[in-house]
């Protein structure tokens, strides 16, 4: 292939500069209000090859894919818990080819999954406003372990919460009185290093 060094450099740059043109850096969904699929690795965006298999296999239909103009996240999966929470079926972890998700079995979920942490807004929660609710507890895949109900079914989230987001999906209050936040330094509800 006869190619001058200048042409070669120019085409490499062209390849790289096509990217900002597609909207690099313009995040579309508020990252603190989206979750990553279970067992996402720390360098998730580097690992994920954007094959979409996790979204296709998700039994809850909760995994969505960022559109091409989402910059660095384009093509990678995310979950909006208020739309649909994760069933903790672990299928996505088992089909991921790249190691972006670590394969686990359903019985490992409580130990291995940390998608975020649920927070109850006591000023919104129906049970704290005097109307016995407790829907979040019933929606949780680990009732009694991740979330417990006190007097008048007032919910309390425990450290075992895996952040699946089913409580947020089902909470009948508008806006949701229980919400799940990613536990990383960018999150408005970061608890600090564990």
């Amino acid at each position, binding site marked *: *292939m*006869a*190619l001058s060094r200048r*042409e*070669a450099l120019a*085409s*490499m*740059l*062209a*390849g*790289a500069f*096509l*990217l900002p043109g*597609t909207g690099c850096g313009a995040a579309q969904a508020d990252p603190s209000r989206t979750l990553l699929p279970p067992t996402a690795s720390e*360098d998730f*965006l*580097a*690992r*994920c*090859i*954007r*094959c*979409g*298999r996790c*979204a*296709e*296999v*998700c*039994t*809850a*239909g909760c995994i*969505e*894919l960022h*559109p*091409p103009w989402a910059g*660095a996240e*384009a*093509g990678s999966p995310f979950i909006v818990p208020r739309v649909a929470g994760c069933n903790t079926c672990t*299928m996505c972890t088992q*089909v991921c*080819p*790249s*190691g972006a998700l670590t394969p686990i079995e359903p019985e490992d979920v409580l130990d291995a999954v940390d998608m975020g942490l649920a927070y109850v807004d006591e000023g919104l929660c129906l049970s704290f406003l005097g109307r016995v609710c407790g829907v979040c507890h019933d929606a949780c895949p680990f009732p009694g372990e991740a979330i417990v109900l006190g007097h008048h079914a007032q919910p309390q989230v425990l450290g075992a919460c895996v952040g699946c987001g089913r409580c947020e999906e089902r909470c009948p209050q508008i806006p949701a009185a229980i919400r799940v936040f990613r536990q990383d330094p960018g999150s408005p509800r970061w608890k600090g290093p564990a």
Partner: protein
Amino acid sequence: MRARHLAIQAFRRLCQVSALLFVLYAAISAHWRNFKVGHNSARLVGLLKNEAWGEAYALNERALSWFGEPLEVSDGFLGVPWGASIAGLPFTDPLSVAALASQGQLPPTSMLVGALIPLGLALVGGKLYCSFLCPARLVFELGGAVRMGLQRLGLPLGELGIPRLGLWVGLGLVLFSAGMGMGAFHLVLPYLSLSQGLAAWMLTGSAGVGLAIFGVLLLVEVFVAPGQICRSLCPTGAVLEQVGRAAPFRLRKVDPSACPSSCNLCQRVCPYGLFPGQETHHPSCDSCGRCTLVCPDNKLAHGLEWGAKRCSD
């Protein structure tokens, strides 16, 4: 001879359409599985969506049940050709392995195994992936047909020639991935972004992205630079071309007698403007075989030949 050429073309179309249908089916199956997990009944799906969907649900279930437990079998059809699972077998673009490795990540075994399939295909048949399986190539061929029609009408159309930079584009993207710690191919690689757009359409019901990518590829082919994205820019094609430099299955001029000097039918029909009649078509030729159909003397054919290809560059 001509019957054989026609059969190969029919088989090629079948393969191309199957690859496209695979992408659509893998994405549509997501809904099927959600209904399976949620309701597990064609009758219920019929009541919820309508009878046609209920029947489609039952049909899919019956087809899958030939191969085993339907839900498990269905989980084996996932992804896009860049990183797919086909009947449970991995299929991976070698470039996705390169992009991952360039970021200092060890690609999992299944990805390495998956990359062996396209590499093996290239060692035997060169760029057969491009001509027989690539979903974007189908769009480009559609564009080529439209272009030919417009030319018959006498419209002046652009004909930008682009130097062959596929390997450099690939290298640039791998370096970009390494430097930025994120994948980049899905934004630039035509067949990947196209199939992602189509899959997203099937998953979410919004066609916008898929149609936009389809439209851009088509417009470039029809009005700007016919054949150039495949021949000169696509990094996957460039890698397969290098791997397949000595591939024994190739398109060749089987009849050594000289062509009449006035004839250039094969060149006019080649999507890349190559001239197989003069045996200058390698290494760009992807053995699509369109030229075999037009040669009045049947001088061109697919076949086996050992040793390096005679290349024009």
